[in-house]
C-alpha cells in the first residue's frame, strides 16, 4: 500500500480496490488520517463522520468481494454541508442549523451512496451558500490549501479545500452563482455546475431555487465524469428536474475536439480582469486552437447585467426559502421568548449571520409591494435577455470560454467590509446560472503560486461536451496535476 493514495485518480483508486492493493476500509482510513492531521489548519470539514465512513467502507469491501462493485464503490468523498444526510448533522454552516440532524438523504447523496461512495464528512461552506469566500461560515472560513492566508472561495469552499488538500478525491458542491466553479478555480480543481435540472435538488437546503444546482469537484474531468454519471438524473421528487437520460459521461470523454467551435466573449475579457489571469486563460485558448478547435470572437451584450440581476433574483428567492427557519419546529430557538414576535425575531436574529440577514432584507425589499415590478420583475426580464444572448451564441458556437474569476484567491478578510466588491467576484460565473446552462472550471495556469481557472460554458445538457473538451485539454497539459504542498 502506498502512502500517496491521495494523489491517485478515481479510476486508479478503483483499480487498486479491485486489485485488492488496499481495501475500501484502508482507503477510508488513509483519507481520515489526512483529515485528522491537516484539517485543524484547513478547516475544510464541519463534521467528520468517521464511524459512518468506516461502515460505508465495509459495505464497499463486501460489494468488492461479491463482485457487485461499480466504478465508484469504495471511493471516498465529502458532501457540502448543504446536502441532507440521514442521521448526520446538516448545518448549512449556520448557527441556525447547528443542532439539525437530517431525517433523510438528499437524492444526490442517496444516488452516490447507491454507487458505493464512502462519505467522510460534511464540508464547510458559506452560511446557507451565501458568500464567495467561505468567510460567512458559522464555523470559520476554510483556508486555501495553496496558501492558508487566502480564501478557498465560496460558497463550496470546504469541498474545494478538502479535495485540494487531499482529504478526498471527490466532493459535492452546489452552485447558485459560481459556488462550485469559483472555489474550483481558486484551489486548482476541476469543478462542474451541470444544467439546471440535471441533478435533483431534493434534500439540498434551498438558497435560490431557480438557480441552485448540485455539482462536483475533482482533480480531473475524467474523475468528474464518473461522479456526474452517478449524481445526475430525473427525480420525481423535484418538479424542476429534467426528464432527460443520463449519458455515459466517461464514454463521452472521447468526443474529438477537432472541428469544435469555441466562442470567446469579449465581455469576459474587459476591464476588471487581472492581466495575469487573463493571460493564462488566453494561453488555454491558444492551446485549444492547437488541439484543433476553432476560436471565434463573440459578444454577449447583456452579460454585464448579470451581477445586478443575480443580486435581485437570488436574495428574493432566499428571503422566501429561509422564512421556514423560525425556531418553531427545528433549528435554533431563542431562549425564553416573551411572545411569538420575540421568538421569531430573536431566533432568526441569533441564528442567521450578517450576510444571510443582509440578503434576506434585500430579498424582502425587492419583493415588497410597490417595488416588485421595478426590481424582481425587471430582473426576470433581464434574465431572459441574458439567456437569449447565450442562445444566439450557441447557434454559432459549441462552447464558450473565459476566465472563472477576475483574480486568483485573495487574502482572508480582504473584502469583508465591502460586500459589493465581493459580489463582483461572481461576474463571470452568475450568467450561466441565470441562463440555466452547464459550466465548468478547470485549472489553466498559476499566478504568483496560486492556481487560476478557465471557465467553459455549454448549451443545455452539454455536460458531456464540456467534460470532453476539458479532458482533451488535460491530456495535453498538466495544470490539473499541480498540487498544493499539503496534498503532495
Amino acid at each position: 500500500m502506498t502512502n500517496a493514495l491521495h494523489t491517485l485518480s478515481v479510476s486508479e483508486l478503483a483499480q487498486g480496490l479491485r486489485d485488492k492493493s488496499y481495501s475500501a476500509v484502508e482507503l477510508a482510513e488513509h483519507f481520515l488520517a489526512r483529515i485528522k492531521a491537516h484539517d485543524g489548519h484547513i478547516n475544510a470539514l464541519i463534521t467528520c463522520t468517521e464511524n459512518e465512513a468506516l461502515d460505508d467502507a465495509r459495505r464497499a469491501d463486501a460489494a468488492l468481494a461479491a463482485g457487485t462493485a461499480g466504478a465508484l464503490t469504495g471511493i471516498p468523498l465529502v458532501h457540502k454541508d448543504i446536502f441532507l444526510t440521514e442521521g448526520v448533522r446538516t448545518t448549512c454552516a449556520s448557527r441556525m442549523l447547528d443542532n439539525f440532524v437530517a431525517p433523510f438523504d438528499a437524492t444526490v447523496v442517496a444516488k452516490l451512496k447507491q454507487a458505493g461512495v464512502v462519505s467522510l464528512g460534511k464540508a464547510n461552506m458559506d452560511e446557507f451558500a451565501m458568500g464567495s469566500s467561505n468567510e460567512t461560515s458559522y464555523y470559520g472560513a476554510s483556508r486555501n490549501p495553496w496558501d492558508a492566508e487566502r480564501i478557498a472561495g465560496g460558497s463550496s469552499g470546504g469541498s474545494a479545500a478538502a479535495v485540494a488538500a487531499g482529504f478526498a478525491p471527490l466532493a459535492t458542491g452546489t452552485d447558485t452563482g459560481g459556488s462550485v466553479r469559483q472555489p474550483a478555480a481558486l484551489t486548482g480543481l476541476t469543478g462542474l455546475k451541470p444544467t439546471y435540472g440535471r441533478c435533483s435538488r431534493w434534500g439540498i437546503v434551498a438558497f435560490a431555487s431557480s438557480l441552485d444546482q448540485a455539482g462536483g469537484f475533482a482533480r480531473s474531468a475524467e474523475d468528474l465524469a464518473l461522479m456526474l454519471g452517478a449524481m445526475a438524473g430525473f427525480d420525481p421528487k423535484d418538479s424542476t428536474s429534467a426528464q432527460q437520460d443520463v449519458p455515459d459521461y466517461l464514454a463521452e470523454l472521447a468526443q474529438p475536439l477537432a472541428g469544435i467551435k469555441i466562442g470567446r466573449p469579449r465581455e469576459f475579457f474587459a476591464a476588471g480582469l487581472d492581466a495575469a489571469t487573463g493571460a493564462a486563460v488566453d494561453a488555454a485558448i491558444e492551446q485549444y486552437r492547437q488541439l484543433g478547435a476553432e476560436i471565434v470572437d463573440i459578444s454577449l451584450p447583456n452579460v454585464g447585467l448579470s451581477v445586478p440581476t443575480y443580486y435581485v433574483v437570488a436574495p428574493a428567492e432566499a428571503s422566501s426559502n429561509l422564512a421556514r427557519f423560525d425556531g418553531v419546529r427545528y433549528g435554533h430557538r431563542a431562549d425564553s421568548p416573551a411572545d411569538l414576535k420575540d421568538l421569531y425575531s430573536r431566533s432568526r436574529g441569533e441564528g442567521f449571520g450578517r450576510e444571510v440577514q443582509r440578503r434576506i432584507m434585500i430579498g424582502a425589499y425587492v419583493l415588497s409591494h410597490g417595488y416588485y415590478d421595478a426590481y424582481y420583475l425587471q430582473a426576470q426580464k433581464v434574465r431572459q435577455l441574458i439567456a437569449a444572448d447565450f442562445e444566439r451564441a450557441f447557434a454559432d458556437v459549441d462552447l464558450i470560454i473565459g476566465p472563472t474569476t477576475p483574480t486568483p484567491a485573495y487574502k482572508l478578510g480582504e473584502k469583508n467590509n465591502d460586500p459589493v466588491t465581493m459580489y463582483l467576484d461572481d461576474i463571470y460565473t452568475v450568467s450561466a446560472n441565470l441562463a440555466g446552462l452547464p459550466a465548468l472550471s478547470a485549472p489553466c495556469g498559476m499566478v504568483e503560486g496560486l492556481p487560476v481557472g478557465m471557465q467553459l460554458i455549454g448549451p443545455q445538457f452539454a455536460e458531456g461536451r464540456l467534460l470532453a473538451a476539458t479532458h482533451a485539454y488535460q491530456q495535453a497539459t498538466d495544470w490539473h496535476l499541480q498540487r498544493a504542498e499539503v496534498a503532495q
Partner: protein
Amino acid sequence: MSYPGWEVVIGLEVHVQLKTQSKIFSGAATTYGAEANRQACAIDLGFPGVLPVLNQQAVEMAVKFGLAVDAQIAERCVFARKHYFYPDLPKGYQISQYELPIVAHGHLDISTDGGETSKRIRILRAHLEEDAGKSVHEGFEAASGIDLNRAGTPLIEVVSEPDLRSAGEAVAYLKKLHSLVRYLEICDGNMQEGSFRCDANVSVRPVGQEELGTRTETKNLYSFRFVEKAIEFEIERQIDVLESGGSVDQETRLFDPDKGETRTMRSKEEAMDYRYFPDPDLLPVVCDGAFVSSIRDVLPELPEARRTRFMASFGLPAYDADALVAERDLAAYFEALVAALGEDNAKLAANWCLGELTASLNEHNLDVAASAVTPDALAGLLKRVLDNTVSGKIAKDVFAAMWAGEDDADSVIEARGLKQITDSGAIETLVDQVIADSPAQVEQYRSGKDKVFGYFVGQVMKLSKGKANPGEVNRLLKSKL
C-alpha cells in the same frame, strides 16, 4: 332584513377543501381527525431541502369546478408563494395562486323569492392553494400547540364578485356552492370540520350611490348561520357608524359565534405585504384542450340542469325542485322513487322525500345514503297509498315502523291490521252511528255551518282507528247529511 336608504354589497371568498387522497404537494394522507402531526410528512412540516410536487387529482378537481360554474380554465396557470409568519404555516409562505389562477370568470345562479326568480352571481376566480395547519390553544400552559395535519390539504378558494345584496342572498349563494362541490364529489362539504368555510367582504352605501362603500372582511365563518349572523351584524354596525357621522375602517374582522358579533382582527395599517412571487419549485400548470375535454366528459349532471329537468319532466314546482337537487343523493333517491312509481306520481314522491324522509334523516342525523328505508321500500309503501290500501296518514305510521326496522310495507300493514276500510257497507255503519250520536252538530250543519263537516269526518276516522277510506267517508257523509 332590509335597511331603508342603504344598499348592502357583499362578496364571498369560500375555501373549499378538495377531497383528494393525499395532500396537494406531498404524499401524506388528508383524512380528518388523526392524532396531531401524524399526517404531516417532511414536506408538510417545511423541513429544509424538501420540494413540493403537485397532486394531479387536485388540478382535475379544480378544473371540474371551473367547468361546473361555466368559467374559463387557464391554459397555463402558475403557483405563487404568499408570505407571512405564523406558527401553523411551516414554510413561512403558503403556496397559492396569484396572478394566474386556474379558474376565472364563472358564475352561479341563485334562486330568490322562494325559487321563482333567479339571480346570477359572478365568480371572479377560483385558485388552488394549500391549507395551513392549526394552532391548538387548549390544554397547554403558557404555550400553544401546533397541529400540522391539515397543512398542505388542497383547497380551492372561490372568490365571488360583489354581486350579493343581502345576508339571505349570501347564504343562498353559499348553499348553492356547497351543493355544487358535493355534486362534483370534490369536497365532503363538512363545515364543522372546516372542509367548507367562508370569509365575507361587506360594505354598505346609500341607495343610488355609485361608488362602493369601504368594506370589511370577516374571517372564518364555518356555518351558514354564522355567515348570516356575521353579515347582518356587520351591516348594522356599518350603518350605525355611518349614520352617526363616522366612517368605516377597511379592516379584517373576526366573528365571535358566542357573542354573535364581529370584532377587529387587523387594521389596514397592519395589512400584510404578502410579497407574492411565482414559486420557482413548481412548473406552470398546463391545462390543454384535450385535458379539459376529458374532464368535461365525466362531469355529472349539475344541480341547475337537474332542477330544470325535474320541473319540465315531472311538473314539480320550483320550490320542490330546488330542495330535491340541493343534495345529489336526495335527488338520486327521488329519481329512484319516481322510476318505481311512475312519472305521474312524481309529486307524491317529492312530498315524501321532502317530508317524512328528510324529517327522519334529520332526526337521526343521517345522510340520504344511510337512510333506513330504501327507495324501493318507500315505493312499496306509496303504492299502497295510491291503491287506497292505506291513507296518507296511516302510511306515515307504516313508514315509521319500516324506519324502525320492521319488514316491507305490506307486512307491516298486514301485521298491524292497518288496511284501509273501503267497504261502503262498513263505513256506512260508522257514518250512521256518528250522525246518530251527534244531533247538535247535525242541526248546526243543516243550518248552514259547513265547517262542522270536518267534525263528522274526524269522528268517523276516529271510530275506524284511521283506517276508513277518507274519500268514501266524505261521499257517504255528504249524501246522508
